């Protein structure tokens, strides 16, 4: 029985390579992006979002970035005041998930050229495009940042060629907004650097 059990565990572990969901939440509890790769009912989603607010946001910087939630676990990183929270199966390698999050942030950073929370707020569709280019159904598809960005740029070019100028609503940021919420890339997650890089 134990042998069977062990084999069973191993096969589950090997099969687990994708996120169940990713949620970007600000320190104030506002959702900046959320995508559920596995099917969840509306009430399950609500519960997950509530759990993130309750379990992740209050944690101190010196604590580990993993919270067990039964079937899945929250693995999160904090960039400035924004939390990137991933729900991953228990069997998934926690550290690699942390770095997958970072890889995503690096790609966003490359696209928006020093990404900040506002970029995500106003160009949600671009973030989603990048997310879908890098992660297929929650599984890492491309880790080469340059290739990801090239795909996005090519897609944009195609859209522009095909449609009338000025139709695209992207990237028209309101000038009156500040860039205080600049991410601190390459820093330890959770550690907050001096504010206001611009």
């Amino acid at each position, binding site marked *: 029985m134990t042998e069977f059990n062990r084999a069973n565990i191993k096969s589950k572990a*090997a099969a687990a390579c994708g996120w169940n969901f990713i949620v970007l939440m600000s320190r104030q509890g506002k959702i900046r992006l*959320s995508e559920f790769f596995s099917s969840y009912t509306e009430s399950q989603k609500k519960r997950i979002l509530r759990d993130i607010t309750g379990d992740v946001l209050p944690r101190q910087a010196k604590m580990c970035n993993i919270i067990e939630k039964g079937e899945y676990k929250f693995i999160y990183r904090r960039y400035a005041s924004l939390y990137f929270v991933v729900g991953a199966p228990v069997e998934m390698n*926690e550290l690699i998930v942390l770095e997958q999050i970072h890889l995503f942030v690096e790609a966003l950073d490359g696209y928006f050229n020093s990404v900040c929370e506002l970029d995500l707020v106003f160009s949600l569709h671009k973030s989603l495009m990048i997310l879908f280019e890098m992660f*297929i159904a929650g599984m890492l598809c*491309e880790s080469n940042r*340059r290739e990801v960005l090239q*795909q996005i740029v090519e897609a944009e070019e195609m859209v522009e060629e095909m449609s009338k100028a000025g139709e695209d609503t992207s990237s028209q940021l309101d000038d009156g907004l500040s860039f205080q919420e600049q991410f601190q890339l390459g820093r330890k997650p959770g550690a907050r650097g001096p504010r206001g890089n611009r």
Partner: protein
Amino acid sequence: MSSQARGLNNFITDLRNAKSKEEESSRIEVELAKIRKKFNPGGGTKLAADGSNPSLSSYQRKKYIWKLVYIHVLGYEVDFGHAEVLALVRSKKYGEKSVGYVALSLLLRGSDPVMGGVIDTIKKDLTMAPMTKVGGGKTSSKGGGVKNDATQCLALCSLANISGLELIQAMHVEVQHILVSKGSTEQVKKKAALCLLRLTRTSPNLISGRIFAPHVVQLLQDKHLGVLTSVMSLLNGLASQQTEEYGVLIPNIVHILSVLVLKKDCAREYLYYRTPSPWLQIKLLKFLQLYPDAIEGHDIGMGGNDHVGQLINVVTRIMFETEVSDSINKSNADHAILFEAVNLIVAWGTTCPPEMREGAMNILGKFISVREPNIRYLGLSTMAQLAQIDGSVEGAKKHQATVLVSLKDADISVRRRALDLLFVICDTDNAERIVDELVAHLVVADASIREEMVLKIAILAEKYATDLRWYVDTILKLISISGDYVSDPIWHRVVQIVTNHPQGDLQGYAAATLFLAVSTHRCHETTVRVAAYILGEFGFLIAERPGMSGEEQFHVLHQHWYNVDTQTRSILISSYAKLANLYEECRPLVAPVFAKSKNSVDVEVQQRCAEYASMREAFSPEAVEDLLREMPPFEDKRRSALELRLLETEGENSAAVTKASTPSEVEQQRAMLNAQMMDEGMAPIDEQEEPELEEEMADGAAEAAEDEKIAAVEANPTLVGIPKDLIPAMRKAFSNLCTSPSGVLFENAMLQVGVKHEYVGAQGRISVFFGNLHATALHNFKVKVDQPDHLRVQMQGTQGLIDDGEGDEGCSIENKTQAKMLLLVEVTAPFDDAPSMRITFETEEGERHDYPLRLPLVATCFMEPVNLDPGAFMQRWKSLEGQDRECQEVMRLPPNSSGIDEEYMSRVSNIIVNGLKFGRCEGVDPTPWTVSGAATFRTGAKDVNGNNINVGCLVRVEANPKANAFRVTTRTLHPLCSKAIKNVSLVSIKLAAL
């Protein structure tokens, strides 16, 4: 605020400026209403055939869909606009299509009925031939048209995200084709691989491993690391479903891994902080974990070019040459690989060279003391896995002190892991230390982890207690420290263990300890419950001690009466009844309590009081004595309630559950001791007298035996079954045993099988002895007992004796010795047959014997006599008329029998009363030629109210001396009961004729 169309940005700005959640949601409500109106204006506007609004411009449609996506992503439910999404997907323009596919992924699920409408479109997009052969994916599309592979990518990504059975059925062939097609670009391939993985996950065994494995070999040659990573994900998914089919790929995987790890050969873009694609390395290591036997039997260190040697090199390199880096990202990536390598060692288990396991343990030992919380967390968690391999726990135990430090960490995640690890490394040597530490920590532990700690402490204390008194003490401490977290199963378990261990002075010790615990006025209610139960059962053991007399026991319990809830009061009431029964001086103390609580609003309290109070008037003193006797030992479940509780909270795969369900040495010893205790005091089989022989016997005895034997003999000529001439004797022995508590069930020149059985209510204890009468030893001796649905059976016996279907060796019985088997059974439903028992063994002469027998475990074993007065008997007799309820048969005695006389009738009545355990109802029998009786058939099954289900049974035997015949009539509520009683009665009466 104007109501005209606002841009996406304005909408977002509005939401950002919302001061409260309510303001945000009301703004969203307004927007949703507006969009709904745009999509379906109603009035004269005609919608297109697909339900979309044709008057919307491309810009408008995209804008509104983006708004819906935005609203969805913020966590609000969006349940309309599907038609417009599909219209975008169907569009020929890439710009519209891309928006459509993103919205499709987010807003719709594969199960949505509207999906049917886009299957064709998705299929067309998927199978589109690439317009130009794109080299290396670098060709810019500037000046060209839409790149077809971009459309393919959109479709694949969307398909992967939504999955859904209908889509899978329609598309999986295409996706598979795209993946292996030479014409597909890398972009498409890597997405197709993951898409296929997602499809196989929703609908397993979509792909046959035998056919697909060669394709995977091809794909693994791909130089593009993105494709390779995706293919590895797919491979892991497939291999976890059909592990054997992909085992051939191990050398390929080892090769790829060694290129990355040993040669550090990797395209620059795929270095992540100078580490060659950690993502791919992890997946390769995960794949290898599927094959725990991969290195078994290989002589490690010999022949460097074989893949096992290479694999060992790789793992060694990862383990011992991972360096600590200043960059958190590099450090994470490297340690992710390191932990995965340790997981591989865990998977290999004992086949892994011990020095690698020790090395891994040392590394983890360092990790659990570092400051970096993630590494510490994972160190603890992985060490718990590693420590479970045979022989590794000693290494982990060295770090006990460090683990105890982490138990006090500020972080709940770390504390949980530390607790788990402590649980795993706990054994008989260190149990007292660890449990004491845990108990000490419990005082300061916060609420979120207390319940888990209490449960684990309780399990450890039970598992590793060398002295059960320490166990009792520990649980009492738990209750006093955090009684609110001690769930019912925990204290129930204490009661069970104390009741089931009469040896030593455990029961007296427990009674005395609990007496002291409840003598203070302030103590936890759970303590009162345990004390009430234990003193009620075992209080008599300490009643002679000074200050602990029955009266004083009553007083220490009763001081809590007004502070406890009704559940506790019910337990107290039962204890009082038992005390009052034992000690004359308690009766005047208890009586007023009962009198007062007879009117309690709580039904349970009321009922118990009323019943106990009137018991003495209603029943004979013997019956009262019986009712208030000590409880019999509890049935020992395979999994204790505590383990089940743990299973609930942690899931099947947790280390803790595995640990909890394997019995410790101490537990095994305890079980052995108990079994020995039970065997003592039973007469050895050889001294029992042989039953008389008789010609033909009853239903159900050995008929099956006969048939099975013939079949078996034909199949295998060296097989010896039961000789035909033995069968009548066997039948008679069986029938005899049905009505007598012990006897010989089977005997020939080789083997004697004796049975001793006794029953209390629905439960029975059956000891079976197998004596070797042969000149030499009997080998491979196995007994298989059928476990019918209507019986809950627990078996224990001589090592190897019981055949549990695992193909074990069986045991050997030397000549003139015997093997024993003990069955504890509980009946759960009426039945009319007897469980079969198959005995197989081999002699030294090489004969194989196979005896199918039946155990004399029939319905009447579970009867309890009922004494009815004639009026009541006749009333019930009449009320049970009817076809299903009555069973009747007339039987003529053989002509050579001595005939029916008064002496015979007294034997019959003896059979009914002592054999079938019916209460004789004298007054109903006007002549000496009838015998009537009543009984209750007890089952352990519970009805909806939690009461045991019992069946009332009536029997009547009428003799006709002139015709030399008997008529047996049974009436019960259950047809099977009627039939079973009739059969056993007939057979027994026939037996009495000789």
